């Protein structure tokens, strides 16, 4: 983070984390949406702290890259946040983001989100900052955009930064217009900010002045598309094109084994 703009592709298992390292990125992001999907659930607070932690441990063990981890709402109140921060730090996370939604939460892009009052969110953020032991980067995420609009987002962002958050993260940016407001009113006002999305290419996001971009849905979207196509092909043609080819081309399979066996 001190060396400049950080681009972190989103993954939800250890194999994909290894791939992020192998393809030359400098950080990896663990997505709660993807973790929930891996377990077969939508991202609506059904996946618990322990399940997120298990996935985080597997991912941190699999890569030397710094792991930026979703910590949702901290799984309860300020006391729960304290424990979450300690667990995430113990698992090896380099950074986490904590959001101001009502628990149980929803994905940042779903309807039906609710946010907790600013005072409560600040108390949870302070609990997180006090609980960290060892340089964990704490990212304060606000979900207020869809609920209350930009004025509240700007108030909250400044309050979170003033309370000591290392980065601010406005989630639910759905248009280039919103991204422009985010950039103009917060990034250019001097707040260190994170952008989650693909409305702009990384070099553009960096030019806007963001400190970090996460591509939360990268692995999930890739798997979803390829698995859907493969299952259709198997159903309709009796063979999965590329997988069948894989068996004839051992290098691709060996690629996985090599990746999995590579020294940490």
């Amino acid at each position, binding site marked *: 983070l001190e060396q400049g703009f950080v681009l972190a592709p989103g993954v939800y298992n250890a194999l994909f984390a290894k791939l992020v390292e192998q393809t030359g990125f400098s950080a990896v992001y663990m997505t709660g949406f993807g973790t929930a999907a891996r377990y077969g659930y939508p*991202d609506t607070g059904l996946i618990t702290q322990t399940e997120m932690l298990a996935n985080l441990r597997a991912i941190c063990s699999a890569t030397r890259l710094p792991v930026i981890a979703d910590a949702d709402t901290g799984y309860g109140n300020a006391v729960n946040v304290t424990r979450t921060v300690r667990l995430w730090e113990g698992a090896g996370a380099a950074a986490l983001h904590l959001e101001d939604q009502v628990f149980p939460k929803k994905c940042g892009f*779903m309807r039906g989100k609710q946010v907790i009052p600013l005072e409560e969110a600040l108390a949870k953020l302070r609990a997180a900052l006090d609980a960290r032991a060892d340089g964990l980067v704490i990212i304060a995420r606000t979900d207020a955009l869809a609920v209350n609009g930009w004025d509240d987002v700007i108030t909250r962002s400044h309050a979170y930064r003033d309370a000591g958050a290392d980065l601010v993260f406005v989630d639910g940016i759905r248009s280039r217009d919103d991204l422009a407001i985010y950039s103009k009113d917060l990034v250019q006002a001097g707040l260190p900010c994170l952008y989650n999305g693909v409305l702009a290419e990384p070099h553009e996001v960096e030019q806007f002045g963001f400190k970090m971009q996460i591509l939360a849905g990268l692995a999930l979207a890739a798997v979803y598309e390829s698995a859907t196509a493969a299952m259709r092909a198997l159903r309709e043609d009796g063979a999965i094109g590329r997988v069948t080819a894989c068996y004839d081309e051992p290098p691709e399979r060996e690629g996985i084994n090599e990746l999995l066996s590579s020294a940490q």
Partner: protein
Amino acid sequence: MSAGRKLREQLSSGFVVAPSVYDGLTALIAQRAGFGVCHLSGEATAAQLGFPDVHLTGFSEVVDNVRYVSEAVRISVIADADSGFGNVHNVARTVREYEAAGAGGLHLSDETFPRHSAANRGEHLLPIDAASDNLRAALDTRSDPDFVIIARTYAMAPHGWNDTLERVAAYRGAGVDLVFVDGIEAMADLARYAADVASAGPTLYNGALVPTEQVGELGFSVNIAGGGHVLSYLAVRDALLRVRTGSTAEPARNELRFGDITSLLGLDEVYALEARYATTSTEER
């Protein structure tokens, strides 16, 4: 209806194609594509936890994955149980845990535990009697008599057909529901597998030497279509390389996928439950 009964009905209604999955999401995708049975691969379970397929994953990690996959879908799950994670005691526990986790059946191999070599599967086989004991322990332990027990042998690669056929006969004699010969890599072997094994009783083929339809015509009961995690690996790698070279996916498609993915994962059901039980007043604000 028990998970075992459900799988057994699938098997008795005809030839079954079971695509390999490795997590809740891929199982849901298999179900949506119309498959009635999916196969949970041990290799892919290990891979997603970051390990090669040499028993570095803990038993509870493996069982957790069986549970997540079984809970995610209504279709039947055939779960890879490797060699049963130890001796007959471990085999017995494996059967109890897999059954409780919601699998409809499992396959149990005749390798020693832990796997001695990732490269040379089948180099270290259990003696035929010990392997049969494991299978009998598995059969005796199941609490649901419909829970499907499949015997897998790795004897083909190191020992060839004679030992393989001897083992198939012994395992069938022990009472397993299906047999599964691993390492069929040539058309001639597939033909012999069909003629000498599939013709004599329920048999599973794990491979893609011919399209699934032909596998059914050859007389097999089940065709596992593996390699799903390899495909995911390639897709994620391609996506990462696209970002590295400066071309991320266009936003419109991303938006579309978001809706598809959340609906597959059951978001609509969550909203329906919220409406029924008023968990949160989403209309309040």
